[in-house]
């Protein structure tokens, strides 16, 4: 069943078309990949889907249209994301980082918090920390963490609100091979928790290894979609992106 449906998504920056009429679907419980050369419009597509960039076209999640919602409402509707640069909240501990994302405060909550601070959602936080196997880092500050755990914490923060779908923007950037393996294992667990994934990354091994379906973007257009083995053999994809048959693609 289709979870995320993107129809005719188009983003223009001052005359330049960054994303050009993209149609894309992510089925429920799936790990979908989005790849493409630098400047293909992958991050812009994520920004547009999550509401950070104004875009023409339609985005719906589980049949619910999201087009008019601002980013935080889309997040609350079950569409979570991470950032390429992670953007963990530096002055908050790992646990607090997650608590921010799990909380759904009403605006009047701010009035009472000066007198009786609300404790915050500890159950969801514990669950997400354990799902990503970073529970022992709960009290650390993000700046104290090595690169690998930081990436896992960023994903934990994205899934702590139990979204239907999480969009991951280059989660393996800067990770070594062992860390990437840990990441891949963590990603494979997400569908069992009821969370579908749209994964953007440069690491072909990771993308082709964990994804059920892969979309390829080039110069703002979708040039191929399908299972990894089909996409890997696609002529257009090879010319546009891979240049040559992938060397590392058979790993993982």
């Amino acid at each position: 069943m289709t979870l995320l449906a993107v129809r005719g998504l188009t983003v223009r920056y001052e005359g330049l078309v960054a994303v050009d009429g993209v149609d894309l679907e992510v089925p429920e419980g799936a790990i979908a990949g989005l790849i493409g050369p630098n400047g293909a419009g992958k991050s812009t597509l994520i920004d547009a889907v999550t509401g950070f960039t104004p875009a023409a076209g339609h985005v719906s999640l589980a049949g619910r249209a999201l087009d008019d919602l601002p980013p935080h409402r889309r997040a609350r509707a079950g569409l979570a994301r991470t950032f390429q640069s992670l953007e963990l909240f530096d002055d908050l501990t790992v646990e607090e980082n997650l608590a921010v994302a799990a909380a759904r405060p009403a605006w009047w909550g701010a009035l009472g918090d000066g007198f009786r601070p609300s404790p915050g959602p500890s159950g969801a936080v514990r669950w997400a920390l354990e799902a990503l196997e970073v529970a022992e880092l709960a009290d650390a500050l993000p700046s104290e963490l090595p690169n690998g755990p930081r990436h896992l914490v960023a994903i934990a923060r994205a899934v702590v609100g139990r979204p239907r779908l999480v969009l991951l923007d280059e989660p393996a950037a800067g990770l070594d091979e062992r860390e990437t393996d840990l990441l891949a294992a963590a990603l494979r667990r997400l569908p069992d928790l009821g969370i579908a994934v749209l994964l953007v990354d440069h690491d072909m091994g990771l993308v082709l290894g964990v994804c059920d379906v892969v979309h390829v973007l080039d110069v703002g257009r979708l040039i191929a979609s399908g299972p990894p083995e089909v996409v890997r053999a696609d002529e257009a994809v090879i010319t546009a992106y891979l240049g040559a048959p992938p060397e590392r693609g058979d790993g993982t």
Partner: protein
Amino acid sequence: MVAALGLGLVLTYRASGVVNFAHAAVGAYVAFAYYELRQSGELVLPVLGLPDRIPVVERPTVLTALVTCAVLAAACGIVIHTLVFRPLRHAPALGRVVASLGLLLYTQALVELRFRVRGGTSFRIDSMLPEGSVRIGGVVVFVDRFVLAGLAVAATAALWAWFRFTRLGLAIRAAAASEKGALLTGLAPDRLAALSWAVATALGGAAVILAAPIAGLDPGLTSLLIVPALAAALLGGLAGFWATLAAGLGIGMLQAGISRFALTADWLPDWIPPGGLQQGLPFLVILAAMTWRGSALPTRGSEATERHQVAPPVRSWWRLPALVAAAGTLGLLTFSGEWRLGLIVSMVSAVLCLSFVVVTGFVGQISLAQMAIAGVAGFLTAKLADGLGIPFPFAPVLAVLGAGAVGVLAGIPALRIRGMTLAIATLAFATTTEELVFKSTAFTGGLGGTSVPEPRLLGWNLGIQARGDAYPRVAFGFLVLVTLVALTAVALNLRRSETGRGWLAVRANERAAAAAGIDVRVAKLSAFAWSAAFAGVGGVLLAYQRTELSVQSFVVLQSLALLALVYVAGIGSVAGALVAGLLAVGGLLTAVLGSGGDRTAEYQFAVTGVALIVSAIHNPQGIVGALHRWRHRRRDVTAVTGVGPR
């Protein structure tokens, strides 16, 4: 003049990425130096501690005086660049704002100390521009205004041509775009920036000198011309000389037009102060324009990762308040006279500083409107208690609620603009409030001031007034202490609550906060509301402490001074506000240092200014931040953490 000052701002911004809040103040100093030189033949030097003045020539002509002052101004520009802003090139925006506020405080105190004769300035200001007027379409226009406008156009053309056609101008543009790149091509970005500073400062000085006969010369008022100048520079996008010129002239003409209109329109209600519309309305227009042009969330890549002062986690909500209560009680019972007053002033200042910790420390929104908000609460208390006879606990509570509402209003621009631009917008908000509300006779009693009735609870006098040694009354001290202790606990609670975590998330990165499901607008407005409530309480306490309020009680400059102090102390933590309170002018530190005659305040402003600059450069984490780090490091050494540093 607005246009010319705006040009200088654009020039320094383009050269070194700094919005110089002290630009008009330095211009005012140069103008004072010029008129003093014309009159006495002595040049007044800008460094406290060096000899005051050096004789230059017996009777300088206009030309020699102008040239001398141009050289002086250029030298000031270069010194400012080298000592202050060059070391801050890579500092966070707030650090640079604080440094330029420090410079503003220093320059203003300097002008007061060196030129102010009791009862106003003493020298004649004669115009060097042609006099007379012409009639154009039934409107009388003075020739000198035309000449001034012409000079501004000429200066713009010169700057534009300089940047556009010369190798040097190209080099400055290149250096501003990429310092490293410019270095690689063999340019010296440093020297170029210094040159820009020299030109900008000379230009600012010239503008104030020429316009003084029309606009007058006053250390405080002239410095505050920075607000319209900033507005002009902002409307010009901080980049275009011509756009800045147009905006500057436009603001000037709008003000003139409004003042004519206000004189003729009888239907305007009486409460609007004379000149208030003229001074206030253009800022409202600018605020609206700036807000309109902003965006709800920063776009990808546009948000440079700001480094903030640490906001240490809060483990206990009662330890710090308990400490404050104990120390405060001890102090109130043992101190007397000056020291007790100093302690009380410190505690009131600490309450005001808490409002900066909430809005600027926790949420990263630079607000320079806090004293204006405090003023609204102060005057409201006086009005409600005196005019309507509402008794003690209720009048101030209503006033604080009112302040909270005003705070939300002041926070609206923050929904779409941020950083330096927001600082300027809140400054414009504060100026507007000052001009339209505080100068209104109906609301504040105008220049005559308004008196605040003593707070009485169940027949118990909690006021400050008493004769002789009993002043300041200990009962009032305890009223302030109880309030401060309560607010400290509230601030700590906010920091460790869901709301506080959301605020810090917004401060760290608005986009990431929104992605985490936080409504950034709600977070910002709630912070502005809370912070305004704190400021409001501070304003009420200040009203009770002063017992008389006037327009002078809540001036924009105090917002600047307090913000800067909190930054030095540590803006990310509640303890920072307490430290800042101790350091405040008139506070405990002043009392301990002893009063050195009636100029102490000015000297302290000057020293504070220097301290701000030094600490912005050398201790960007603030006093509390540095302590926290030191403790943290010690803990790291002793405890074996499972996770290594990155």
